[in-house]
């Protein structure tokens, strides 16, 4: 499905870029406000996973769990954040997957994420599906589903939002 016009493409692209920047700059409060109250942040554990209730996930966080994670990341004694994780997101292939009506749409993108902590740099990559809902002052995330290329690999700790 194509974007309706250049404005719509800009609007959605800028939203995703803004979200990525909030994550890279650890602006967790602002990031959490991008979600609808019942919004879901979800990183499936296996390729093609169909639901988050009957199968374990890498992350499966509602507003409460997102908030608990954000609070933890800011604790002085979050030992596994000494030093804090640094990340940079690179987004690409931003495409409109569906538009239910003017208020809801699904955007698909791909990403590369470079992560640095302590002694090592890690790379994550995959595709993201944002289901967005229009609010008065811009878009809100209803669901952010991140499908990592290596979702089913053994992982070391994943601490920050991808």
């Amino acid at each position, binding site marked *: 499905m194509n974007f309706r016009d250049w404005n719509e493409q800009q609007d959605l692209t800028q939203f995703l870029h803004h979200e990525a920047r909030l994550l890279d700059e650890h602006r967790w409060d602002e990031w959490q406000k991008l979600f609808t109250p019942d919004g879901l942040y979800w*990183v499936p*554990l*296996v390729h093609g*996973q169909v639901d988050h*209730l*009957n*199968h*374990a*996930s*890498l*992350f*499966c966080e509602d507003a*409460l*769990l997102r*908030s*608990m*994670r954000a*609070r*933890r990341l800011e*604790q002085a*004694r*979050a*030992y*596994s*954040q*000494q*030093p804090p994780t640094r990340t940079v997101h690179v987004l690409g292939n931003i495409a409109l997957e569906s538009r239910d009506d003017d208020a809801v749409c699904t955007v698909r993108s791909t990403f590369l994420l470079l992560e640095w902590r*302590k*002694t090592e740099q890690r790379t994550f990559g995959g595709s993201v599906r944002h289901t967005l809902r229009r609010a008065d002052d811009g878009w809100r995330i209803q669901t952010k589903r991140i499908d990592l290329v290596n979702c089913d*690999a*053994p*992982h*070391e*700790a*994943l*601490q920050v939002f991808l």
Partner: protein
Amino acid sequence: MNSVIPIIPIAATDPIDIQSLVQPDRVHKRVYTDPAIFELEMDRVFGQAWIYIGHESQVPKPGDYFTTRLGREPVVMVRHTDGQVHVMFNRCPHKGAKLVPDGSGSAGKFLRCLYHGWTFKCDGSLLSVPLRSGYECTALDLKDPQYGVRKVARVATHRGFVFASLSEDGPELKEFLGGVATSLDNFCDRAPEGEVEVAGGVQRVVQRNNWKIFFENLHDTIHAVATHESSWRAAKEEHESMPAGTPKPFEVVIVDGNGEPLEFWEKLELKGYDHGHGFMEGIFVPPTDPVSLAYVASLEAAKGAERADEILRVNRHNTIVYPSCSPHTSFQQIRVIRPLSVDRTLVEIFSFRLKGAPEATFQRTLKYTNIVNAPSSNVMSDDLEAYNRVQEGLGSDGGDWVSMHRAAGRDQPLPGGRASNGNSEMPSRNMFAAWAGYMGVDTGVETNEQTGSAE
């Protein structure tokens, strides 16, 4: 640029005098850092003990298989056409190819090697080889059982949990499990139908630490308040930010419990059994949210109120089945510990469904593994950091010994084991007594086997 100090493992050039490395209340750092000791452990500990392989429900139908590692050996668990579960080396007897791919699936009626097409029954016996005539009058006798897939020495099952041993000798599984068999029993008894099944996928976490550090932490109650401060504080703050009187959500309960004061942990009872096993009492008051209440009702409907109450009263946190797994009976998961090298350990987290319980009960199990044990866990990330700092610190020249003195000499005897209060380092001493036994040395910690007081 951060300064990165490489940790140089202690060279294992000297012959290892293991006896000199273990004492009743302390161990030498080398047992965690020396690659040669790791190799010996694979032979002597993982080569002798009963090791958890998987659960029968992972291979429900004939031909279904599941691969894993027994120590450093790649093995496969397969269900035969007669319904029996076999554990064998994942190696073709012809030229050695791995017979089934890593993972799980169905082999159909036979196991067929990809390389030259030898086929085997699902119990490993040789069924057919191409060019049979080529073997006539050669030294290779196709009737010789050595041309079947080699089975591990012993396989036994306790209520669906499959264990295997590479050793012909040693105690029977039930005797080996001793006092922790009751944890596996309670795991199943909690199901209205009395059975459990693996479901919902497996999470895998790689840790940068020796496997023993992980086991010791399972019953190291007093680390929680310090190590997990970031997560229990976050959980408490979260609850405080809710309107006054809001009941604590499940997500908060299972995280902020780590913040209990040291006096709380002291009151818990720890049990240690021969062979290194043990368990710790439950730390959560049985929850009274609608999901929990519906589950209790389903258990009462199936077993009657009295029996249900008896089952639910067995309230345990982590159980240690040394040296391979840790069941969590009240949230239905098993963590399987697979040592990869002296400083790398893989932990696999399997979730279980209680047959006959409401679906929401299983979903709560998944919530528990997602929040507490997944790679993304807020709780476990600080454990991993602690284990890694221990591993790195032990690689230094800052000291030779690791202390396990806390409450030494104050254990109470139990049939087949010993009990201590919740903040004792008895579980570590108990595991090292078993470890030393496997490794062929004596720590001086009395086991009931030695004193002959086992049940």
